[in-house]
């Protein structure tokens, strides 16, 4: 005997009377959720805030699904919604985090030392990202992490391509300098401890 369970086209959906367009839309949304979470995590610097952001974006997207133009990139449309909500939050309240929050979120006490070291190194990157101005952070995430072209990223944040280009350059240079600074600082501490 088998128990068949439809994740996407379940009896719940039929009973709730959702039309096939909504069903397809929901499927598209689910498919893009991991990338939305990554994007939101990069923007907000917090796992929990990022998931809240994605949840709000899903709700807004469903409420405005008629505004999505078939034939255009669904992921870009969703990135724009996430980014818009996040910018609203940045403007309405101080959402900047204290350094180290992500490390607390992510570090488990039972991890092997080498893995902890690797995580700490990546936490440095996340902290460096978190210190960038919001507009540079968004440009960096859209192009460098999500792989959008400059034109697509410009459409998401609704600025000219040249602005994206200069924001990206500033962000990449700042990120690199911060990482070099963090590494330098860590080396100095290690040297001091060794002496």
């Amino acid at each position, binding site marked *: 005997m088998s128990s*068949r369970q439809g*994740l996407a086209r379940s009896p719940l959906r039929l009973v709730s009377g959702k039309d096939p367009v909504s069903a397809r839309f929901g499927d598209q949304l689910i498919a893009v959720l991991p990338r939305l*979470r990554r994007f939101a995590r990069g923007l907000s610097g917090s796992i929990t805030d990022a998931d809240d952001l994605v949840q709000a974006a899903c709700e807004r997207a469903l409420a405005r699904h008629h505004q999505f133009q078939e034939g255009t990139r669904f992921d870009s449309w969703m990135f724009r919604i996430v980014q818009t909500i996040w910018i609203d939050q940045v403007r309405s309240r101080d959402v900047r985090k204290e350094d180290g929050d992500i490390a607390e979120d992510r570090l488990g006490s039972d991890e092997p030392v080498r893995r902890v070291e690797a995580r700490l190194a990546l936490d440095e990157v996340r902290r460096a990202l978190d210190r960038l101005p919001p507009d540079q952070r968004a440009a960096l995430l859209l192009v460098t992490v999500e792989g959008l072209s400059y034109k697509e990223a410009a459409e998401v944040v609704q600025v000219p391509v040249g602005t994206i280009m200069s924001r990206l350059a500033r962000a990449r240079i700042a990120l690199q300098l911060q990482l070099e600074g963090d590494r330098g600082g860590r080396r100095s501490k290690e040297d001091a401890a060794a002496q």
Partner: protein
Amino acid sequence: MQQRSDDLLVAYLDGELEMAQRREVETWLDTDPAVRQRMAALAESAHLLRLALDEALHEPVPDRLIAAARGETAPPQAGAQVLPFHRRLGEQIVKPRSWRVGLPVAASLLGVLVGGGVAYLGVDKLALNGAAGKQAVLETTAANNLWLDNAAGYFKLVVSAGDNLPIDVPATGDPREALQKISQSLPQKIQLPKLEPWGLSFRGARLVVEEGRPAAALVYTSDKKEIGPLALIIGSSKQPDISPTFDRRQDVNLLYWRHQGRAYALVGQADIGYLWGIANDVAWQLDAV
């Protein structure tokens, strides 16, 4: 001047320059070691950034987000006061510290979502199209029963075989060679999804039958007991697309879906939460969703 050179270097790395500008940057790179060093540092920091954020792709998606994507959470009222999300939703803050926390939640959500156990793509057709539709659905269901049973049976062979895995092409050396060999017997070439972040190692491939057509079963093993061995079956299909659908046969879990003429099935004894996360990863890597 420095700003312009930084703009150009970064745009060069991103593949966004016209030919003339690319040549300009390449001339700098050929002639100036400092520029080469700067370029290498920029590339490295970009790589680290991607690495730092990639874990979000390999985690199970929290149940509340899947519910939100399906429209099963209440949307905010127009003009409502904007509060922190967790307060608005009346939820506790759940920090997905690890798989051990996230998976049971994901699994329980899926259990709720799937409900009464009769859902299949054909169900709505059944209601709409009368006897002819009913017959088509029955035929499709029968075909599915057969290959899903076969997939579960094959997976049980994998489990019981221990180190002597029942595979036609072992992944010794370059795994791409195993893929090439198995692809020769298939109507379409297949790609190998990288599942190392899940602790899964590709061990080889076997030719199987999926929906009455030849398909490749890619066999992965893992030291993680909670994931265990896993088979990813990829074949071609003439059936319409379906979203990931969970099934359980012979004590084996299956998550299968179809996308643009391809049929996919993840088969294993891993929890549905793991299968769901891995399926997301596979779908993303293979552009299969």
